[in-house]
């Protein structure tokens, strides 16, 4: 492998600085003891966190958002597993191109269009599903998160070794049993990361929610958006720091897990090689 030129290395450092500088600044200013967010007024550990905790509007919206994200991501994961499975295992069926288009398009479709179109559907369906509220928001969130999860599941199913499923079939397991007893447990890590991805995307959505919700269901991003529009608010910095903290801990766990999985794999390989060498 040829060595990287220093120009590329400097470039990479600069890009990471660009990606992380805004995030770091938000975290730092959540510990700023001044109402003016960008003027440093000394260090405070908990001033804005206590203010955040006492802001009923934010806390209620956060609870609602977590609920919506949990329900939506769970439903979307079920649909996403099936969609990913269909895309890999069934290469020919009537409407396959349409299906793959409908799975891929929500990933890039401008949110204002998805939001508007779903709202118009919900208005038409009003006699069936009732007014807008939790149900319509969940349906909307399931629809666009399911695409992300389907893409995650699709790449997992693509790299899946079929021999285990074939072995189970040969031993007499029925197709449904094979799917639930063999296939699903193998792809479980992908299902977990798909669910987490769906959860964060749902938790973060502003535009589609704004179109599809009713008066009683104001979510966290909507509260944040209305506050941010009025200017900087140190409580938002505190909220951002909490979110960033949770995500960072999760990612560190994932890296540690990946590292140990990699090491286990290498050890297994070495043992296999030694076993072959002995024989």
């Amino acid at each position, binding site marked *: 492998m040829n060595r990287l030129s220093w120009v590329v290395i400097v470039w990479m450092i600069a890009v990471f600085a660009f990606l992380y500088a805004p995030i770091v600044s938000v975290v730092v200013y959540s510990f700023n003891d001044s109402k003016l967010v960008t003027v440093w007024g000394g260090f405070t550990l908990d001033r804005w966190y206590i203010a955040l905790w006492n802001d009923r509007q934010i806390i209620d919206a956060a609870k609602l958002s977590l609920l919506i994200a949990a329900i939506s991501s769970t439903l979307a994961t079920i649909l996403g597993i*099936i969609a990913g499975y269909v895309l890999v295992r069934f290469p020919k069926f009537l409407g396959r191109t349409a299906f793959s288009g409908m799975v891929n398009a929500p990933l890039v479709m401008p949110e204002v269009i998805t939001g508007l179109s779903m709202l118009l559907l919900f208005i038409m369906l009003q006699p069936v599903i009732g007014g807008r509220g939790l149900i319509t928001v969940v349906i909307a969130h399931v629809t666009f998160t399911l695409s992300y999860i389907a893409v995650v599941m699709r790449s997992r199913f693509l790299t899946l070794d079929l021999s285990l499923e074939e072995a189970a079939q040969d031993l007499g397991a029925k197709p449904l049993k094979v799917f639930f007893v063999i296939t699903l447990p193998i792809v479980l890590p992908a299902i977990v990361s798909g669910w987490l991805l769906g959860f964060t995307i749902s938790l973060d959505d502003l535009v589609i929610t704004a179109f599809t919700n009713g008066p009683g269901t104001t979510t966290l991003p909507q509260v944040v958006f209305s506050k941010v529009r009025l200017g*900087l608010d140190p409580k938002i910095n505190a909220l951002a720091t909490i979110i960033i903290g949770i995500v960072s801990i999760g990612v560190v766990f994932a890296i540690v897990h990946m590292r140990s999985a990699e090491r286990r794999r290498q050890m297994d390989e070495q043992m296999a090689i030694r076993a072959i060498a002995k024989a």
Partner: protein
Amino acid sequence: MASSDIATRASRLPASGWLETLLVSLGIRGRTLVIAIPFLWLLLFFFVPFLIVLWVSTSFVVIAQPPYTHACPDGGTFCLNISESFGRLFDDALYIKAYLNSLQVAALSTVVCLLIGYPMAYGMARCSHSTRNILLMLIILPFWTSFLIRVYAWIGLLKNNGLINEFLIWLNVIDTPINMMNTNFAVYVGIVYSYLPFMILPLYANLEKMDISLLEAATDLGCKPIKAFFLITVPLSFPGIVAGSMLVFIPAVGEYVIPELLGGPSSLMIGRVLVNEFFSNRDWPTASAVAVAILLALVVPLMIYQKYQDKELEKES
């Protein structure tokens, strides 16, 4: 293994089981049922809504709930109204300006993302295996934190008394703050910042798989590294370039949050126009016509993107 091979092997697995027998006796094969669940969901909640947008874009505004109708203004029961909602898009210069501005902002942001992201992805793909995974995590990490909060962070940086201006004044580079907030510049910064990972990831996925021996062969034959880069690496990474560009360009055209928070009244973008027509003016037919117009601009990019996705599915192993 190509996906068609997997499918052939999978199809050889015998189909039985009481549920399947039951369904077959009802005339439904398990396979059809499995396909139908996600298919019908997406059909009803993703595709049909577009037809409704098209339908509403041909209606008249009324003061009612919902505020659109297909009843004729002269008392007839059914009329299509194409001239008013679509006609307004051409009559009022505001719409055309916003439309063209959005396309320009999205295109230029895509180019900037590519210029920043390509060397980044190239560098990542040439790192050692363990470093690669960590760098990849670092690229994905901001994507997992809130999009809204990342845009919010830029307000604190770009304001007149924000961090960038304070820093430049402290360095004595400038005396008076540069006005960056509420300008087109801020919108570009916000879009490039938010969408950069979407450019880097497909580029990286492509460059990572590239066969290094081709470059070695070129060097052995006396090709300079720079020349080899432009003659071999760049053309081979073309699918990654296309995928990344579509992932940035398509959503950026309809972007609403970034111009709303970072841009001023002059940074007119079509997504903002749509939201204003819908929520402030309660003009649903015009809002729908704007949506149809955005979709028309995106048909070709969407098809390119879809084609790439299908190719990837075929190629991946």
